[in-house]
């Protein structure tokens, strides 16, 4: 698949996936819609299950008995807000869900997912009424910046309830040089790459199809990582955890970021499997897929941190797409990096049965008693 073919698909898949709200905590409510969306995009996955914690699993069976299991995880939840109080005059109070930068909220538009979706605007005093507009100490907490819905008290109470979630408004656009802009790139763009790779594999006549592939669109990464920890129970032979990472920019240090357009990245960490990460990097480089490497020594800030040592442990590699303006209303990625990510996932699937057997080869020195473990 050429980049220009992939680009059309990336825009389509992202638009479908990012239009679904799924603020952390609401994943379960969106599961049915996500299922239909993924099924409409590819027939690669033949099984679907919704997890108790709100995550969703799409499984591709290769048909081989006791086949190796490759888990690809892209958390589906996104940062946003939760309504905590209905105020007089059509205002609501919200709390952040996940890490939201309160400096950017004044006069920002959001949508509240009540009985129907309601637009709202964070209040902002005009500059001539602000006493201390440049005083960062005076920056209020998000809970103290009411959201104006413009509704009457009655209409507000009929439509919005405490506990409803809210998110940034979906208004994607394409910018110069293949840059795609929109909400919830973290992490719908990785889900996009995963679905794109499934489409690529299903169209690839040379694909050997010798492993089961489970795509996890997991929950709660932005709040506590429980969705990732739950995946340990799947006992996958290895997992590629997809997430966004920092695109290099002014004021972003070089050691925590990488450039747009130079490919997706693999994060080496003390908490993930270096051997499996090497397999991912080597598989990409062998096929001339652009890929970067960076180090996140103690914590990758992804589901891999929770999955890697959950249950009986899962060897994880973190594959990421560089992104700018993370957790803001308008995040950007380079579609060339999304393409690189999807191609790398295909390479992992190609190499998987052999690469994972290689990982297992050295584990047993003398077998532990089977009945005891």
């Amino acid at each position, binding site marked *: 698949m050429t980049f220009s073919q992939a680009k059309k698909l990336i825009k389509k898949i992202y638009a479908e996936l990012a239009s679904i709200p799924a603020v952390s905590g609401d994943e379960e409510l969106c599961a049915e819609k996500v299922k239909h969306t993924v099924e409409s995009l590819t027939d690669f996955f033949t099984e679907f299950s919704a997890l108790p914690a709100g995550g969703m699993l799409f499984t591709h069976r290769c048909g081989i008995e006791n086949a190796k299991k490759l888990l690809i995880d892209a958390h589906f939840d996104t940062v946003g807000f939760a309504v905590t109080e209905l105020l007089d005059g059509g205002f609501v109070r919200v709390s952040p869900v996940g890490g939201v930068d309160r400096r950017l909220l004044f006069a920002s538009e959001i949508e509240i997912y009540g009985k129907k979706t309601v637009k709202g605007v964070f209040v902002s005093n005009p500059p001539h009424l602000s006493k201390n507009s440049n005083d960062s100490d005076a920056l209020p907490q998000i809970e103290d910046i009411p959201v104006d819905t413009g509704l009457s008290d009655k209409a507000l109470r009929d439509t919005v309830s405490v506990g409803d979630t809210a998110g940034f408004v979906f208004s994607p656009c394409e910018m110069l040089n293949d840059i795609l802009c929109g909400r919830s790139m973290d992490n719908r763009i990785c889900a996009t790459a995963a679905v794109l790779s499934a489409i690529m594999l299903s169209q690839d006549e040379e694909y050997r199809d010798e492993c089961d592939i489970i795509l996890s669109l997991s929950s709660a990464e932005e709040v506590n990582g429980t969705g990732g920890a739950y995946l340990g129970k799947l006992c996958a032979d290895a997992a590629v955890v997809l997430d966004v990472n920092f695109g290099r920019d002014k004021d972003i240090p*070089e*050691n*925590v970021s990488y450039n747009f357009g130079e490919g997706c990245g693999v994060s*080496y*960490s*003390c*908490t993930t499997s*270096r051997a499996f990460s090497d397999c991912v990097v080597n598989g990409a480089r062998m096929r001339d897929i652009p890929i970067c*490497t*960076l*180090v*996140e*020594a*103690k914590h990758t800030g992804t589901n891999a941190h929770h999955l*890697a*040592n*959950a*249950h*009986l*442990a*899962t*060897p994880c590699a973190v594959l990421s797409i560089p992104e700018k303006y993370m957790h803001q209303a308008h995040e950007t990625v380079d579609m060339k990096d999304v393409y690189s990510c999807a191609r790398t996932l295909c390479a992992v699937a190609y190499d998987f049965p052999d690469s994972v057997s290689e990982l297992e080869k*050295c*584990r*047993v*020195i*003398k*077998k*532990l*008693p089977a009945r*005891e*473990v």
Partner: protein
Amino acid sequence: MDYRVLQKLCNAPGVSGYEAPVAGIIADLISDYCDGLEYDRAGNLIAFKRGSHGSCGKRILCSCHMDEVGFVINHIDECGRLLFEEIGMMTRAYVGKRVLVGEKRIPGIIAVKPVHLLGSDERGKDPDEEKLFIDIGAKSRNEAEKLGVFANYAVFDSEYENFGDKKIKAKALDDRVGCAMLISLLKRGVKYDSYFSFCVGEELGLRGSTPVCERIKPDICINLECTTASDIYGVKGAKKVCTLGDGVAVPFMDNSAVYAPSLYRYVRGLADELSIPCQTKTAVAGGTDAGAYTKIAGGRATIGLAVPTRYIHSAYCVAQKSDIDACEELLFELSDRMDVLCSINERRYTHDR
């Protein structure tokens, strides 16, 4: 205690996430002495040893961790300087120290500018860790990259040696002392079937012990550790936490775990009965793999045995040989009495029900 084994283990590199070199040494040392030996999916080394009396009907786990504090190289700048992230240390413990980078053991210095050039706002403060780097003498990014240092580890360049009055000084005493004791126990043999785990990632937040506990589901766990001794000049009373030369430290609680109270009392009583020097920790501080063992898979009854260690998580940890010997002796005695420990533990549950 075979101090040659401890020396070999302390001098080996094994930063959290990079435990393979020390794990390989341990596997070589114990493979002839155990009846099962596997790495699990997280890299923990798990051994099984049949007891001379068979099984006592319960699963017994003796555990320590292999990893040590250190550094991970996360960037090379255009001048060949290595930027790094520390694992498990405070800045003041490592600035200006010598390190060895990666498998090639490339010597480097954690560079900091001379005192003469400090600005008034920098004096009297720890250096800003974000400005620190490792100087290996490379003149360019290309030169450093060719050495394979990116995404690699660095450890302190300090050798194990005897120190002062019957003490030892080394990097990584925490927890190669525990590893050495479990190796001794495996070589000596056990009365009852036992598992032994040499865990990864303790210094990153008790990561390796979690899957070990899920897999073995021990009924009783003995966790071997080093623990902070603050018995230095000017510190008095309980603030010392524990004291070098006063014997093995048996904690009743730390920041990660509450140790099974009835087992704690039994262990202290046994040490007294056998005249093995023994103390407890006089502060609820620190955390160990016991934190995972007491929580995972429903929580397992856990005992901690620790060697008091000064300057823990630094290039020069100091411990007293007599404390190590006391700890090892108590471990052996407990290992021979696991049936008693299991029956005490069983009574706890009966009583609770």
